[in-house]
């Protein structure tokens, strides 16, 4: 077989991801069919659940917020060609940071002081939990994937120890902290909108969503508009050339992982400051890992990450609806969809690349010779 012609950029950016996503969803549909349910009906139920019912959009965007943060965490590291699969642990530790500030400061300070500080603490704690594996990779040569996996478990052990010990709410038996005072609670968007006399259904959607949008923009600026962003991309694309160019490669790796961890840590602002209002066990519940699917689907680009997060937010919210409508399928099917997406958009991302390129080459007229060959 002759090698396939190169894929046009538009096809690589739009068509291929769409094909991968479609195949992933098709396979999931077949599984639903095998379980004796109608996948088309299931999708209708999920769409209704995600967008149509009152307040459902708020829920969808609330989940979207989590995914934006963890997706960004993976994407920032990926720009430096580092695979951070420690988003789970970084978000968990970020929650600790946010929780500590909210617990201690909220009873005695106003919300405009507590919330910014708690957000900062979440980012900072997450950054530290990302920075250490980054340091170990850059300066000690430890494989970042393995180290971040280990750090997820270490974070989990620390949190169990703290939540079932020092930080446990006095007089309680379940492992979580006391509830934050009102000043430690992220304002809900529906409250704010209602105050402006818009009538919006209640949902957990809170200010963190706007923070997430800002983070997306910040990511774009950082990576494509700044000198350090240039350095991050240079290190990612060719670390030897980066070293030649006078870039401090290990420092850049550590920096990228710190930013990455900070993004993951910010996820806690949505979950802990926005909704739970206390630090609870396992509040990250897989969002960190889902961030990998988000970044893969979104091709490490802010626009892609936003839409991938929206899709996943809709799946999570719509998936909850399945429990009411069906006997055999539940919201857990979302995990399956997520796995299929990671498989087809990630590991098998280029399976359809060559066939698609051949198809396009056959459909289009003979292309002009590539530039630069002359």
């Amino acid at each position: 077989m002759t090698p396939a012609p190169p894929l046009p950029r538009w096809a690589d950016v739009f068509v291929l991801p769409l094909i991968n996503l479609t195949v992933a969803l098709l396979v999931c549909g077949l599984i639903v069919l095998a379980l004796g349910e109608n996948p088309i009906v299931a999708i209708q139920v999920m769409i209704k659940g995600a967008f149509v019912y009152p307040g459902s959009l708020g829920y969808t965007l609330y989940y979207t917020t989590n995914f934006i943060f963890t997706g960004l965490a993976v994407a920032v590291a990926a720009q430096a060609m580092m695979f951070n699969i420690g988003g789970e642990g970084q978000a968990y530790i970020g929650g600790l940071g946010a929780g500590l500030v909210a617990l201690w400061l909220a009873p005695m300070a106003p919300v405009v002081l507590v919330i910014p500080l708690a957000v900062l603490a979440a980012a900072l704690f997450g950054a530290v939990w990302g920075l250490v594996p980054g340091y170990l990779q850059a300066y000690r040569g430890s494989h970042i994937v393995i180290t971040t996996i280990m750090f997820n478990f270490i974070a989990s052990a620390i949190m169990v120890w703290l939540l079932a010990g020092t930080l446990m709410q006095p007089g309680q038996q379940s492992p979580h902290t006391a509830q934050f005072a009102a000043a430690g609670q992220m304002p809900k968007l529906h409250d704010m909108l209602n105050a402006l006399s818009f009538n919006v259904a209640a949902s957990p959607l809170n200010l963190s969503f706007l923070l997430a949008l800002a983070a997306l923009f910040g990511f774009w600026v950082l990576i494509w508009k700044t000198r350090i962003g240039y350095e991050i991309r240079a290190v990612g694309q060719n670390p030897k050339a980066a070293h030649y160019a006078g870039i401090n490669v290990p420092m850049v790796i550590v920096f990228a992982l710190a930013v990455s961890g900070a993004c993951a840590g910010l996820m806690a602002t949505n979950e802990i400051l926005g909704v739970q209002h206390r630090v609870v066990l396992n509040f990250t519940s897989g969002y960190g890992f889902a961030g990998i699917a988000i970044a893969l689907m979104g091709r490490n680009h802010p626009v892609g990450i936003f839409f991938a997060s929206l899709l996943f937010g809709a799946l999570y919210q719509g998936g909850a609806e399945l429990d009411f409508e069906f006997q055999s399928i539940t919201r857990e099917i979302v995990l399956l969809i997520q796995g299929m997406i990671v498989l087809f958009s990630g590991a098998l991302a280029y399976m359809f690349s060559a066939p698609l390129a051949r198809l396009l080459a056959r459909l289009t007229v003979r292309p002009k010779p590539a530039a630069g060959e002359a």
Partner: protein
Amino acid sequence: MQVDQSNAAPAIELIDIRKSFGPVRANRDVSLRVEAGSIHGIVGENGAGKSTLMNILYGHYLADSGEMHVAGQRVSLRSSADAIGLGIGMVHQHFMLVSNMTVLENVMLGSEGGPLLAAGRRDTLATLRRLADDYGMEVDADAVIADLPVGTRQRVEIIKAIKGGARILILDEPTGVLTPGEADQLFEVLKALKRDGVTVLLITHKLDEIMAITDAVSVMRHGEIVGHRRTAETSPAELARLMVGRDVLLSVDRGQAQPSDILLEVSGLACTSSRGRQVLSDISFDVRSGEIFGIAGVSGNGQTELLEVIAGMRSFEAGSVRLLGETITPDAPKTPAQIRDMRIAHIPEDRHQFGLILSFDASGNAILGYHQSDEYGSGYFLDEAAVTTHCNKLMSAHDVRPDNPALLAKKFSGGNQQKLVIARETDTNPKILIVGQPTRGVDVGAIEFIHKQLLALRDAGCAILLVSAELDEIIGLSDRIMVMNDGRQMGILDSADAGRDRLGTMMAGIADTGVAAS
């Protein structure tokens, strides 16, 4: 020379072999006839398609079209296993050895003699003994590859290739990493194999090796075979002409150098590699403003490391480097960024690995290393318009084609990529320029352009340190020449005194006492 003149079928016959990698046509209509029992050379510049052709012959790549005959039989090779089955063995340019396994394990790999290793081990030991007796290829079967010197590793590779009684042996650039002594030993082995009727295909870009050992030679250029010659009936000059398609300019008209102040001074430099090998020992020289100081030597004799130390990319153990009056020692190192800030530019040996980020566009590459400069942004931010303007300027001044700053670096031809690197590094009007292999893999037209640029810089007062594996380039451009061998300097000559023969002896590791004063 004993060329087999019998009418027996040729050991190998290739007819119209074609092979493309995407848009790159690596082999075009290659036809080749190799007499049985001869040593046949294939020469050509880097990138001429020699390795691709040999990999097709060894079943590693499948040709897109064409016929292949081995010992008169038409064959189709789908894998290396097919080639091995036909009695073809290959010694690759990059050794195919597992460094944490023993010699014995490496030799056994692929012909273990059964599902359990015990039986095959005895047979392989016997083979090793036989080869040691027949060809003097002694190796310690239980030695771990990582502990062996390069020459011995190559011996293991040859043993692997011929252990099963290969009748055809392909060697891809076998002497690139060898000392002259090791190369001589290799040639003795090849001659002994030839006496036993083995056909040897020797791929190289070194003409002296072709003249010394082959019976016949084929020349490749741009993926095509441009000539077949009997070695006895040709000359290095003719082969060189065929290789490059024109008479090699053995002396560029470079005018008289006007050297003045010493800008770069290296004294007593010593450096070990990360694996603990001594790669530089006691190197001392200086380069003046307005001169080109050339470093000659077989690739891999410390030149790469020397350039990296001076550019701040590699730490060193002893000695000092004095740049524009500032001294760098192991205890007081400077980073590549600090050195570049002193207006010291560096054109690295390997533009794909170091000089460029192939997945960035041209404008991204135009500021590589200078991206912190105030010219291309303010504060933490880059100014895209300024970067593009800069890239446009470089492209028109240095004739980079196509002049599209948004085109990815990997889409440019080798010559234009190199021109972009040179443009970037010379645009700042550097006081010192460190250059490695400026014309490697660059087409002829660009070579001349690059040479003229270097000379113009010299005449403008830049101190240029030039490393090249092409002896002619060194002789043609340099005002003084230092020869390196095994990390040591073999002497420094004025270019007027430096003939090919004299430099060749020094490159082989024989020190020259006629050191020129600086």
